């Protein structure tokens, strides 16, 4: 299980991921991921670090693989299914940096689609 951090957004993201970690196939896959993803929200940024285990901390880690810039309200819209990841990216509600890391992007996009369902 991913440790739930003491900040608000990090804690919520951790809870959402933990809900899916029960799925052993996903958990096994994530164990092999080596990347860092920053959620740069209008509240504050949090970083998700995949490195054998997963951890979340507030702030921006150095040289992240991917940066997702979005409002907290957009996360809510995703959870409420008012929009989808792909639609939010195309409408620039989510701005992504790190397109060159296509595998990382594909993995994280899949994870987000799973946890925000």
């Amino acid at each position: 299980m991913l440790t739930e951090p003491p900040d608000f957004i990090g804690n919520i993201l951790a809870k959402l991921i933990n809900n899916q970690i029960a799925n052993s196939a996903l958990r096994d896959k994530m164990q092999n991921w080596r990347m860092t993803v920053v959620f740069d929200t209008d509240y504050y940024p949090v970083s998700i670090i995949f490195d054998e285990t997963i951890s979340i901390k507030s702030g921006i880690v150095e040289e992240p693989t991917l940066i997702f810039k979005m409002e907290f309200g957009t996360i809510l819209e995703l959870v409420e299914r008012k929009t989808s990841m792909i639609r939010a990216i195309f409408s620039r509600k989510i701005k992504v940096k790190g397109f060159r890391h296509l595998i990382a992007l594909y993995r994280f996009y899949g994870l987000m689609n799973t946890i925000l369902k």
Partner: protein
Amino acid sequence: MVDLKKRFDNIVGAKYVADGVGERYIYSFDMTENPARQPLMIVMPSTVEEVQKIIELANETLTPLIPFVTGQSVGGLTIPQVDGAVIVDLKRMDKILEVDEDAMYMVIEPGVTFGHVKRHLDKHHPTLRYTYPLAPPYTSVLANALVQGLCDLSTTHGSMADFVNGLEAVLPTGELVRVGSSIMGDGNWFGRYPLPDLIGLFSGWQGMTGIVTKIALKLWPKKKVHGFAALFTFGEHATTDLLKTITRSGNFEDIDSQSLSIIKMLLKVPYPVKHFDGEPDYGTVVGYTANSEIELKEKYRQLEEMVDAAKREEPRTVLIPWPTVVKLMGSQANEWIDFPSDAFKVLAEHDGLTWVGTYIHPKHWGTALEGGRKIVEKYDFELMAFMKPLNMLHIAEFKFIFRFPKDDATLDRVRKCSEELLDFALSLGALPYKTPVWSAKKVQKLADPAFFELARRIKKLLDPNNIMNPGRLDL
């Protein structure tokens, strides 16, 4: 003392009189910083006649009496202020005596808890509801009404004292009296007017004017559907301004706002919970009811409209419908709205728990919250503010809560911080509620002395031997 114990034994039965070291210790303190003092003994009556006999004996022997039910006031209100006091524990008087569906009230004894009431109404009177506080289900309904506490209908209907239709009390001189419409007989507890409103002789007196043995409390029709939403806001003034707008729309039954730290406690963030830069400052639960889904949706739409207007000033303000809150926070989020609630057992992380809470003029609400926050931060406590608009915002309420280990250094810090908070609130004309003695002393220094002189005269008139909870409110 042996003789006194025997005489109490004769009234309630030896099984219901306790003077052991353990019992006296348990009844000598609560979780607050208020100094402990052991009672002489504890007596547990089960009838009004026994209460009368206890009071008669206390008058004869000049024994101070302290009414007690479950000790959940978190204000030191049942800690004896004098030596040689006897605690009158009323929890055996636990009957719901009557529920009147026509006039919508219930008559209950002191030991009835919010858990009892909810279960009883849900089972036998499903079209009616009472109101529930942010307190555990084992809290006394009568005590909460008499100490003018808050509940989940306070936003629309005021403090729980405003729900009292009438009561029966044993006066400090032993006579049994009723106030309110039940003076015309049983089955007639519909209200407190048109009469001199003598509820005021017992409400807010912290047990100094007698022992209330029955109380009639208003019930309300239960509407067909209900909804909840969570609102996350930034800044004290922006938050209180938005809450004022929402309250005055008259659409929302309960508005219960708290520091984000408290919400993070519900998310199981461990002690000590700190605020992170950029996090919302406050989370508010807005509760609303309706007689149809259409009406409910319309209320939510109007809420969204008010929040959207606030977003023009602070775009990060968000309103979240409850199903999404549950998705984000997990099912424990429902503990936030399921009153009476044991969710706030997180507050009992340590052996110490206290708070400074006041009713205040709504114009000072934001200022009070902002100033209070600075004081709490200065003393490096967790930021745990609660606030609620009362009675359609004729009154605003705010409090700061502290959970703490009861070591000497922390107790000293708690006392200093509480005093500074209260001094600041009093400077804004606020009045503390569930007032511990130290707090009442501060109020008396600043308030119109004629009020307290009148209170002393009333107390002396009703209780010439000063046996009922002497020392409370520093009278």
